[in-house]
């Protein structure tokens, strides 16, 4: 049996900045210690920073190499860097999520020094402990629904009586008029399609949300972002009790099967670190 080497105790350099990945309950470290892993900057490893019952998972950064300006510039202009660092952040959070009850933080949450982070932790301690309680025994799952525009358009054109009739009338027009009339029909069909998509996706969402502790609808991403040929029509996130996960996934598979060749295509991913549902900003 291979032993995972443990993260070493770190000598903390107060001049260095601190990259914060997330928080875990300190007591969980007794059962599973933090594995050794390269930090946000390759020259530094990740390590634990305990404050009583809350432990921050962090790595150190050279203060001059990681300024707001430098990071902003990299995020916006250096895609290789963004890809590498985004995956790194995610990898650490997945590692934490598999072992502990982890509160994940947003990409590039950075403190000027250890003192500043410790202060933040003590101010927010009560909220952090509440959040641990809320997310214990739960998983976050994402659902994205994509649609084949051509297929759905065809369905709307065939099944909507108004559009069908307008298309019949089109044949009697001159080619020039046909062009403009077709544009009008396309616009109407696009509207109908949007409604149809919203209805269908909303129904799926309601079904799945009924199995979740919490559910939220997110902004859909454009084709430019996804790099896919089909369009995204739904983007949602669910917080599930561990005991509900198998059922949730089975339901996703069932709906997926039912969708078949309808032109809609579901993609569920999880479990994710609870990025979406561990917000301390209570309404």
């Amino acid at each position, binding site marked *: 049996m291979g032993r995972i080497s443990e993260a070493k105790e770190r000598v903390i350099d107060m001049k260095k900045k601190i990259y914060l990945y997330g928080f875990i309950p300190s007591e969980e470290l007794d059962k599973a210690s933090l594995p050794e892993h390269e930090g946000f900057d390759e020259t530094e490893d990740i390590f634990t920073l305990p404050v009583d019952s809350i432990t921050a998972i962090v790595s150190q950064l050279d203060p001059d190499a990681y300024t707001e300006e430098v990071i902003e510039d990299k995020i916006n202009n250096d895609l290789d860097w963004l*890809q590498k660092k*985004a995956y790194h952040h995610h990898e650490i959070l997945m590692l934490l999520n598999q072992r502990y009850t982890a509160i994940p*933080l*947003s990409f590039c*949450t950075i403190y000027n020094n250890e003192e500043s982070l410790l202060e933040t932790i003590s101010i*927010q301690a009560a909220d952090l402990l509440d959040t641990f309680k809320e997310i214990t025994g739960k998983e976050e799952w994402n659902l994205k629904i994509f649609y084949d525009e051509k297929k759905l358009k*065809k369905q709307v054109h065939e099944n909507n009586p108004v559009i069908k009739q307008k298309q019949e009338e089109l044949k009697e027009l001159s080619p020039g008029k046909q062009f403009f009339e077709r544009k009008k029909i396309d616009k109407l069909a696009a509207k109908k399609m949007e409604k149809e998509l919203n209805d269908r996706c909303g129904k799926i969402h309601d079904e799945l949300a009924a199995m979740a502790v919490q559910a939220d609808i997110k902004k859909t991403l454009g084709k430019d972002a996804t790099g896919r040929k089909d369009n995204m029509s739904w983007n949602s996130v669910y917080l599930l009790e561990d005991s509900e996960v198998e059922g949730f996934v089975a339901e996703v598979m069932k709906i997926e099967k039912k969708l078949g060749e309808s032109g809609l295509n579901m993609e569920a991913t999880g479990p994710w670190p609870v990025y979406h549902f561990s*917000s301390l*900003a209570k309404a």
Partner: protein
Amino acid sequence: MPSVKETIQDKEVGLIDVLDVILDKGVAIKGDLVISIAGVDLVYLDLRVLISSVETLVQSYEENNKEITSEKLDEERRAIENATGKAGKWRD
């Protein structure tokens, strides 16, 4: 036998899925450094370049290639029809 859960877990998670969650606004605590990502949408826009390089590595989109080609053809055909105002004999 893998459970249904495992089969979903094994799926490749793309960079866009990761960014979609790690740039999520509703996080617990903010850091000292204020990093304004001018437009996540702008980042997203540029990702197209990146995704195509990921694609060649993962080769997960291979099967879609045929569809892309026929869609492209349709797009071009429609553009020609729009420009000439005449419908060709092929339809969508």
